[in-house]
């Protein structure tokens, strides 16, 4: 992955710049020791690494503002970092950058159950937001699978999703307000405990901008009352076409499940070998979960299984208890672990129109055979967000590159059938160079104009999202 050449005008002033940071932050908030900065050299996309020039870990919005003002005036690039769990390289440093981590800002600032919101510092982890309101019967809906570790700051930067967004939406649909520090140190407040923007929806464009427009230090999040209960049904089919038709029929019948998960045969077999969840050995498996009281769940599952039966399932297993629910989810939840056990893998994140599923699966199989690699598919079938896992052997020279090339071909296929490069992980550096496959020059120009308005010097989270050639003139300016 090509990254811009480090700015020698910055690197030559390294000592003076670090001293400047130390003058505006408490001593323990600035890290420039080479061994220690190495801990920040990558995020969860570990194939790419680059230690930053320095790391700062501020404890307040005003400290964040002081750092950004300083870096702005000195022309130093800043890479914001939440918990460093990005799968797209969203927090990958450049050699001349300061990493600005919000990991020390984790407080709950306000909880208001009657008005259904919580205000937190953005270093707080996703799961601990729910943790703060769980005893009162509430939860925070977006649930990326890294939710134990990932920070709200990163969730906002990437507009993270999760398995339950068919019903509850993604981060942007659950974000009510934010305190944002712009690159020049200006602090702005957008939204709040009330609904909808009064002017232009700046919060809407900041969410998902991958930390390139500002650093979000506080967030007001919508919390929801927990449903009375939830239960899944598992169904197996002998073709992915039939499974796809079944999903369409469930949705057309007026039922909105909270999750519809799809797995193909390679994935089913790996999960079964790993977790012994009792999955049938078949071409396609669906797990459909609904919520409500016991009686409501029974009624919905009855309707869903009646639809499934019309498609001649090879297996149909309705959960009747918490234990049975756990057993059904056990294999799916261990999918990534199961794959990791037997192979190295790359996890893709394209979205396709759900009607294209059977054709896309067939073509992924053809592409994989062409590269001599294997692909296992896990899929949020309700919303079309695919996670093909490309299996390869990292110890074999050339295999990673081959797997990456296959990944790019699969993402281009997603775009070709009317979908997109990323459903929930973001572009980062990983999909940066594919952006021209999805967007025309005018489309990228419009997005970059937003960047121009927020960060005219293009210092925030450089070299992400836009192909380097496309953004070259702006970065040089």
């Amino acid at each position, binding site marked *: 992955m090509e990254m811009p050449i480090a700015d020698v005008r910055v690197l030559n002033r390294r000592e003076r710049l670090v001293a400047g940071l130390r003058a505006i932050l408490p001593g323990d908030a600035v890290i420039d020791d080479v061994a220690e900065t190495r801990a920040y050299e990558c995020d969860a996309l570990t194939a790419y690494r680059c230690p930053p020039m320095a790391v700062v870990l501020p404890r307040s919005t005003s400290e964040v503002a002081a750092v950004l003002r300083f870096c702005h005036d000195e022309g130093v690039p800043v890479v914001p970092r939440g918990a460093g769990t990005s799968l797209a390289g969203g927090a990958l440093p450049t050699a001349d950058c300061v990493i600005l981590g919000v990991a020390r800002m984790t407080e709950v600032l306000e909880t*208001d*159950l*009657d*008005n*259904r919101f919580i205000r937190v510092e953005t270093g707080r982890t996703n799961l601990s937001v729910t943790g703060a309101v769980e005893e009162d*019967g*509430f939860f925070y809906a977006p649930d990326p699978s890294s939710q134990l570790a990932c920070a709200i700051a990163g969730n906002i930067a*990437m507009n993270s999703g999760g398995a339950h*967004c068919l019903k509850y939406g993604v981060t*942007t*649909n659950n974000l009510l307000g934010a305190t944002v520090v712009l690159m020049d140190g200006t602090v*702005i407040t957008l939204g*709040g*405990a*009330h*609904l*909808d*923007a*009064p*002017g*232009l*929806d700046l919060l*809407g*464009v900041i*969410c*998902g901008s991958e930390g390139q427009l500002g650093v979000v230090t506080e967030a007001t999040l919508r919390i929801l009352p927990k449903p*009375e209960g939830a239960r899944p049904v598992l169904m197996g089919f002998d073709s992915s076409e039939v499974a796809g038709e079944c999903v369409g029929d469930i*949705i*057309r*019948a*007026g*039922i909105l499940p909270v999750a519809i998960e799809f797995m193909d045969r390679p994935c089913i077999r790996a999960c079964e070998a790993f977790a012994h969840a009792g999955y049938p050995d078949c071409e396609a498996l669906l797990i459909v979960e609904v919520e*409500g009281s016991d*009686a*409501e769940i029974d*009624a919905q599952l009855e*309707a869903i299984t009646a639809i499934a039966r019309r498609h001649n399932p090879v297996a149909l297993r309705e959960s009747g208890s918490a234990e049975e629910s756990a057993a059904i989810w056990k294999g799916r939840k261990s999918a990534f672990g199961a794959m990791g056990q037997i192979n190295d893998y790359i996890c893709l994140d394209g*979205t396709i*129109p*759900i009607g294209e599923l059977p054709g896309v699966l067939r073509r992924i199989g053809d592409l994989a055979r062409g590269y001599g690699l294997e692909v296992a598919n896990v899929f*949020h079938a309700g*919303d*079309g967000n695919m996670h093909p896992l490309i299996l390869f052997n990292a110890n074999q020279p050339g295999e990673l590159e081959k797997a990456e090339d296959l990944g790019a071909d699969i993402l281009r296929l997603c775009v070709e059938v009317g979908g*997109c490069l*990323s*459903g929930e992980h973001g*572009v980062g550096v990983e*999909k940066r160079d594919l*952006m021209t496959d999805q967007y*025309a020059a*005018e*489309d*990228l*120009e*419009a*997005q970059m104009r*937003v960047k*121009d*308005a927020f960060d005219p010097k293009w210092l925030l989270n450089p070299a992400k*999202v836009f192909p380097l050639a496309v953004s070259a003139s702006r970065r040089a300016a």
Partner: protein
Amino acid sequence: MTPTRKDTVMQPTSEADLAEAIRGANGALAIRGGGTRPLGRPVAGEALSTAALSGVRLYEPGALTLVVGAGTPVAEVEALLASENQRLPFEPMDHRGLTGTDGIPTVGGMVAANASGPRRVQAGACRDSMIGVRFVDGTGAVVKNGGRVMKNVTGYDLVKLLAGSWGTLGVLTEVGFKLLPAPAAAATLRLADLDDATAVRAMASALTSPFEVSGAAHLPGAGTFLRLEGLEAQVAYRAGRLVDRLAPFGRAEVERAPAAVAARWAAIRDVATFHGTPGDVWRVSVKPSDGPLVAARAQADAVQYDWGGGLVWLRMPEGTDLRARLGDLPGHATLVRATAETRARLAPFPPEPAPVAALASALRAKFDPRGILNPGLMAP
């Protein structure tokens, strides 16, 4: 082909024609869909309508997705979705009764206004259901963002930025939505005789229950209304549970007849009690528990609460500066109905803090460098 003119309204029939019209414009353009939402500062400029950019581009009921031309009438979309037992989740308001207009509301106008109704509390606003846009910016460039899939984080989210931008960043030509199944059944619960503060507490109790309340409105004098939607058995069960939960606020009556439930919520959505009345109409968005405080400070001629108290509709004597009365209450107030003179004098959209206003104006300058798209409508 040159854009056709209808009564001095430019009405391009294709995206390419629209782009040409904008490129060739040599002064301000007053952008409109059906002309049913005359909000904001009056715009002096040549009228440009998107009404001819209509039609369904793609509808996949099994994928819950719809893409339509911006000029498509909202009613046509709603009828099409109803034929498949689906709907737009956000229950868009029809502004005609309130503003005394008689055009045909279009999808583009609905999106430019980010128009959302009572279901906003449960299903989100118009912008939350939008998955893609195509628009022509102020330079005449055609831009697309998002697309036809419901999960998409590829690049910046200009879809949100265009929603509620009132035509000031670009002229919409096509919009994609995610949809919801229409429920088989619905019910309205009505509590009588609650004062405003108690009504807001009752609505908070309902909205913090697990019963997915999809409407919570209080019409002083008429009652406090809560809506449930779902499968038949589900609605019956939830209505029973919710009546029990609300017992401290009185005995709630339950209305189950579909036509009556639909009519009730259409009236709340369109603020029917304000139709044909004199005075200005303001729309205030606050933290729900602050709703009664808004009414107390405003000393309005009439009040209606929606969104559990978080959306307050106020009827005020003509020309009143409501914001001066509300003081520093967090939230925002928009002047929805007033004479052109009042709309020119009082900022219809809330003034923004300087750094936010600077960002908004920088964005407008980038997307519309000549300042020709609805100039001044949202901000001076």
